[in-house]
């Protein structure tokens, strides 16, 4: 569902200063600081040891937090590494562990990570930017989010418990203000992200919607961070109306100019960097005039309101398109009907809450610039030109709309906000929902409010249903947003003829590039189940029916008897890999019906239970089956989909998985992959198997692959050496069940339901053990025997046990071949033809004859038997009938009398069947 089509800005990392020391043994140089710059731009960010940083992770909205312990590189200087001390975000702690905290976690709270289970050495190039982390005493309250944007540490987390942590370990060695050398300050501003570091990504998350795990906490923080941010911006923006004005008529300006101006503004207001900025760009901090102060106060109120609002996902507030209505309202507020009012007011709130100040053109960009801003956190600097261009196309059109003096809307805003609050109470949404969807929600109301309220209810239900996976919700909403955002536009246009038509493209561009590829709605709905039955299924009413239900292969037994040893082996193998955080492969073989898949599933159930009990770290279990895909390469698609929910083509999926398994990703949980029917994944180049077995060997993969197939020597038979070698020698083979084991299996399934005689069970299990040792067959025979028993009993109330006779009948039904009966039941001419055939075989001394030869014998036999002689076509028809049942093997019938005939069963069987008459 997610395609990375966005342009990435290339960052350049280099060491700053001379190496501090040289480690002879490891041949590494230690450095004091690292400079990060974006290609094509002059500014640089400097990272020092001891500083807290954000590190690029799988979840791009939610970069990992860590403290730099050591920076080092190898001799060539190519490899840059950083030793870090990790911190975990609230979202990274398993939800079931969060309750150990005993209180609601603060959204900006992080935990000092003490567990050893993750690698503390990261590639320096994954560092995004510095971040402020503050230590708080256990008792002290969290500072008001509006005043501070940094992350807070109170406790440590060692994957089992929370502990109080010492301030000394946490605090940066250098105070943030002093850490960057003066010249770097210049560079930092463009990372307004710095202040709302997570906020920006969160916004993007909202925008792009398909991120694997939108982190509620982060988004929440983002929202609050934004508020702060917006306040600052607002005042500043107001102060410089000229600039705003110029931005407003953006069409005339070059896009890059606009953007850079905006950037500057934005960064200027970031509280986190304000101090630094003061030094270099004092003009940004022109004291707000009176009006602004007034506005500020108002904003303050609004912020509070907005915060309250933000606790309900539904109240979330609209976006840019509603900016126009604002203006409208200003001109002729009375003319607005309720519908238009809503968006407009809501917008105000939104602005205050989420983005930079509405006062100027900057705000205008709230929406439109989001995408551009999103990029910043990664870039740290001004985005490269390519990005700028893209941003421009998105943002510039918006500028035209947004020139609304916001103070005008005050009243209507209040009005609507009260209404919203009412709704809020009604809806009573869960906290988590609210936080995870915070930003996204801003888009939803647009649709909702423009449409009927019933829609809203429906939406609500849908959301609840789909809550299991956050991303789905987000994705869905985004689409609403996309859809909704367009409608208002058109509305606006009709009303305000002065609006330029350029908005339409602006709206269309973003959806088309990042969104279109993932269309989560269809896949989500694309799995309608079989309709449910109108009448409930009947429950078994008597012993035999009960036994039959229990004996069905599909019923999951309480335990898996007779596979204890195999269970133990697999369990300890997987468990050790999970605990060590390493990867590995295992090959399991055995004939069908010996419980391979069932045992692995049982192991997984037990491991999951152990995870719940905190005995082992959490892991993911996914399963693919070679028979359940149309092509070996589909396995990539299925693995990716099960792992992340993304949908991709086979090649793309392979690339994504490759990246996922080969890149270091700290705190990654182990993945256990079960590959059933491995032999079907064979391709000529064997690249699918190669990859499956190669990934576990990667250092950062943490992948355990369990493979299942029928043949014991599959690795030797079909795999080329490099594949077989990677599969390794961890093998296990499931022996066919012995009769005792089969008996035990049936007994355990029946579980004291007395339906079978002892002897009958023994007969079944001995018979099956002798033939195949297939437990499925055994169960099927028993099931059939209960049916026979049921039918044979004349009186339905007095049904006895399943006895020997019933079992014998069932066995005969299932094992006896029908050939002999078929010959016995064949017509006279068919039997004669078979006799003629055997006679001809004997004459020729071969096991094959042409029809013509057999026909001569056939006619002779007819004469002997005193029957009317058969014609060629009659005899041929007889021959074809026997061929259709596959008693004979024939050549294609177009050969007529020339076709060759062979027997499909032994001559002795035929003679036996014919003699028995």
């Amino acid at each position: 569902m997610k395609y990375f089509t966005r342009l990435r800005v290339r960052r350049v990392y280099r060491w700053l200063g001379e190496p501090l020391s040289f480690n002879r043994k490891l041949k590494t140089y230690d450095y004091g600081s690292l400079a990060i710059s974006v290609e094509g731009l002059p500014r640089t960010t400097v990272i020092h040891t001891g500083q807290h940083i954000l590190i690029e992770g799988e979840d791009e909205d939610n970069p990992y937090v860590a403290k730099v312990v050591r920076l080092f590189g190898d001799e060539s200087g190519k490899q840059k590494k950083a030793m870090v001390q990790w911190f975990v975000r609230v979202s990274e702690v398993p939800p079931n562990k969060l309750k150990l905290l005993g209180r609601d976690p603060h959204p900006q709270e992080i935990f000092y990570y003490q567990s050893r289970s993750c690698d503390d050495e990261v590639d320096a190039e994954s560092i995004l930017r510095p971040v402020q982390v503050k230590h708080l005493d256990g008792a002290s309250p969290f500072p008001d989010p509006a005043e501070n944007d940094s992350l807070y540490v109170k406790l440590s987390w060692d994957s089992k418990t929370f502990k109080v942590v010492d301030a000394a370990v946490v605090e940066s060695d250098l105070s943030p203000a002093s850490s960057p050398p003066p010249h770097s300050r210049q560079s930092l501003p463009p990372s307004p992200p710095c202040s709302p570091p997570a906020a920006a990504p969160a916004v993007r998350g909202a925008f792009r919607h398909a991120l694997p795990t939108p982190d509620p906490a982060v988004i929440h923080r983002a929202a609050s961070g934004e508020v702060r941010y917006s306040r600052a911006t607002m005042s500043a923006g107001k102060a410089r109306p000229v600039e705003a004005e110029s931005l407003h008529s953006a069409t005339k300006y070059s896009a890059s100019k606009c953007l850079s101006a905006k950037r500057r503004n934005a960064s200027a207001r970031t509280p986190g960097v304000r101090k630094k900025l003061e030094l270099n760009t004092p003009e940004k901090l022109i004291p707000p005039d009176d009006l602004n102060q007034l506005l500020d106060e108002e904003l303050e109120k609004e912020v509070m309101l907005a915060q309250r609002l933000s606790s309900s996902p539904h109240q979330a507030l609209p976006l840019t398109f509603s900016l126009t209505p604002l203006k409208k309202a200003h001109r002729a507020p009375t003319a607005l009907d309720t519908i238009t009012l809503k968006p407009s007011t809501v917008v105000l709130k939104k602005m205050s809450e989420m983005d930079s100040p509405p006062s100027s053109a900057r705000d205008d960009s709230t929406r439109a610039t989001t995408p551009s801003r999103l990029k910043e956190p990664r870039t740290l600097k001004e985005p490269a030109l390519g990005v700028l261009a893209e941003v421009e196309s998105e943002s510039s059109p918006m500028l035209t709309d947004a020139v609304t003096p916001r103070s005008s809307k005050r009243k209507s805003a209040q009005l609507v906000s009260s209404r919203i609050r009412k709704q809020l109470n009604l809806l009573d949404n869960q906290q988590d929902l609210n936080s995870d969807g915070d930003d996204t929600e801003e888009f939803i109301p647009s649709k909702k409010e423009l449409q009927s309220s019933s829609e809203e209810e429906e939406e609500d239900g849908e959301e609840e249903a789909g809550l299991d996976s956050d991303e789905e919700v987000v994705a869905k909403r985004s689409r609403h947003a996309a859809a909704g955002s367009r409608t208002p536009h058109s509305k606006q246009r009709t009303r305000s003829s002065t609006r330029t038509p350029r908005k339409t493209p602006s709206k269309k561009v973003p959806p088309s590039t990042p969104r279109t590829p993932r269309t989560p709605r269809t896949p989500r709905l694309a799995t309608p189940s079989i309709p449910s039955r109108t009448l409930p299924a009947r429950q078994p009413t008597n012993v035999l029916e009960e036994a039959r239900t229990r004996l069905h292969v599909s019923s999951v037994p309480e335990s898996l008897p007779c596979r204890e040893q195999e269970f133990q082996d697999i369990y300890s193998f997987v468990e050790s890999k999970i605990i060590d955080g390493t990867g590995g492969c295992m090959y399991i073989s055995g004939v069908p019906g010996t419980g391979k898949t069932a045992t692995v599933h049982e192991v997984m159930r037990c491991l999951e239970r152990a995870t719940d009990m905190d005995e082992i770290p959490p892991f993911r279990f996914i399963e693919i089956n070679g028979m359940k895909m149309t092509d070996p390469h589909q396995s990539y698609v299925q693995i990716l989909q099960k792992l992340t929910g993304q949908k991709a083509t086979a090649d793309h999926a392979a690339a994504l998985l490759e990246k996922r398994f080969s890149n270091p990703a700290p705190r990654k949980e182990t993945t256990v992959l079960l590959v059933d029917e491995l032999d079907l994944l064979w391709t000529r180049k064997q690249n699918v198997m190669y990859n499956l077995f190669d990934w576990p060997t990667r250092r950062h993969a943490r992948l355990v692959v369990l493979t299942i197939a029928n043949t014991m020597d599959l690795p030797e038979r079909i795999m080329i050496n490099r594949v077989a070698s990677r599969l390794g020698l961890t093998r296990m083979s499931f022996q066919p069940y012995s009769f005792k084991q089969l008996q035990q299996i049936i007994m355990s399934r029946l579980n004291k339901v007395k339906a079978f005689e002892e002897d009958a069970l023994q007969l079944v299990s001995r018979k099956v053990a002798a033939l195949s040792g297939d437990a499925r067959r055994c169960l099927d025979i028993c099931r059939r025997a209960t049916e026979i028993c049921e039918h044979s009993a004349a009186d339905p109330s007095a049904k006895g046990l399943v006895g020997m006779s019933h079992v014998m009948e069932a066995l005969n039904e299932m094992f006896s071949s029908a050939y002999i009966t078929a010959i016995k039941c064949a017509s006279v001419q068919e039997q004669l033809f078979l006799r003629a055939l055997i006679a001809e075989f004997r004459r020729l001394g071969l096991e094959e004859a042409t029809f013509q030869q057999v026909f001569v014998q056939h006619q002779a036999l007819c004469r002997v038997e005193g029957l009317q002689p058969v014609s060629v076509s009659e005899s041929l028809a007889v021959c074809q009938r026997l061929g259709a049942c596959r008693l004979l093997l024939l050549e294609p019938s177009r050969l007529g009398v020339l076709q060759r005939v062979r027997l499909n069963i032994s001559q002795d069987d035929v003679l036996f069947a014919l003699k028995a008459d």
Partner: protein
Amino acid sequence: MLAEKSKPQPITADDGVNAGSRHPRLSLVPAKLESRQWAHHGFPQVQKVLRERFCHQQLPEEPEGVEAQHKHLLELLKRTAIHGESNSLLIVGPRGAGKTMLLKCVLRDLLQDKEVQKNLLQVHLNGLLQTDDRIALKEITRQLHLENAVGDKVFGSFAENLAFLLEALKKGDRSSSRPVLFVLDEFDLFAHHKNQTLLYNLFDVSQSAQTPIAVVGVTCRLDVLELLEKRVKSRFSHRQIHLLSSLTVTQYLRLVGTQLSLPDEFPDAKFAQEWNSSIETLCADKSVEEVLQRHFNASKDFRSMHMLLMLCLSRVSVAKPVIQPADLQEASRLCLADAKANMLHGLSILELCLIIAMKHLNDVYEGEPFNLQMVHNEFKKFLQRKSNSMYNFNQPVVRKAFEHLQQLELIRPVEGSSAKTQSEYQLMRLMLDHSQIMEALQKYPQCPTDVKQWAMSAFG
């Protein structure tokens, strides 16, 4: 112009004669007509009732001779429909043994149950129509009406389609989902699909706690289980219903009688009575018994019997509203006619001579293939030796006749012989048996005696 004008005239004249002659004949025998007055009313219905029966458009009230199998299948499907128990089963029997009839009867009886009717979903597939899994999956989706839920999205790629369907089936569970009945006609052909993906997945669903399904395969191949891959086979429940008729001659004769007789609820009771008594006398006839015995010897299946009776029925008309033994004999003759031998009657003398020459070549060279030159030589030898009624035909004429025989597929080129060889040297084989040639010669109109003698002589 003349021809055109003259043509219509005879036709109209003929029509007039026919129309005229029909009425006069009827009026000539008023007494007979009187006695068959009932025929006019009952007759169309007779044709309708019996034809429906013979063309398998109407299911019999009770399946004949397979009551046990009927009960077994009915119980099994009932358990799926009512208890939600998954099952798989094969119906195996020779062609024309009544496999589909049995299944249809069971379904008819099953659907009389209201509870079943509301719940059961049916999917009918045929191995001759769904020739690969991709088509089969689309068909399943269509028959389950799942495609509406997703627009045309599901018909994207094969892989998506499979994943989609499996997901849909997986979502269900025993107690809440509607059971689905999969009927796979010509089951053996599904076993030839790549990897047997469809069968594996259907059987796998039937063996796991997913949507309850019953998979019923219908096939005529006794060795069908050997076609299944072992992992597919293991998932199949190994229930098989064999439909092997163990009819005896007397049962067969009785069956023919019941097949021909009219049901009690026939609207014209008097006619039905007359008809049934006429059928009784027919079945008692010695020659009829002989004919039926011969048919019974050839094959016991219902379809060939219906074919025979259908031919009889079509000889019945308003003027002759009974089946006479002669009708049955004629029908039998038609049924057993040898098409190849009949084709020989239409050949020219030259072509017949060539066939005879080939027969002699076959005798001499013990079935070795021959070519045009050899045949022509053989024919020329015959002409030189004893022919007084035949001309010596030119090579091109002989060649044309030879090609005609090839077109009729009375001879066919030896396989593997390349097309590069000149046509007169291309090796051929005769597709006829000697007995067919001799039989055709006996019946050939105005066959020259010397040709006959040549054919019967032991050597050319």
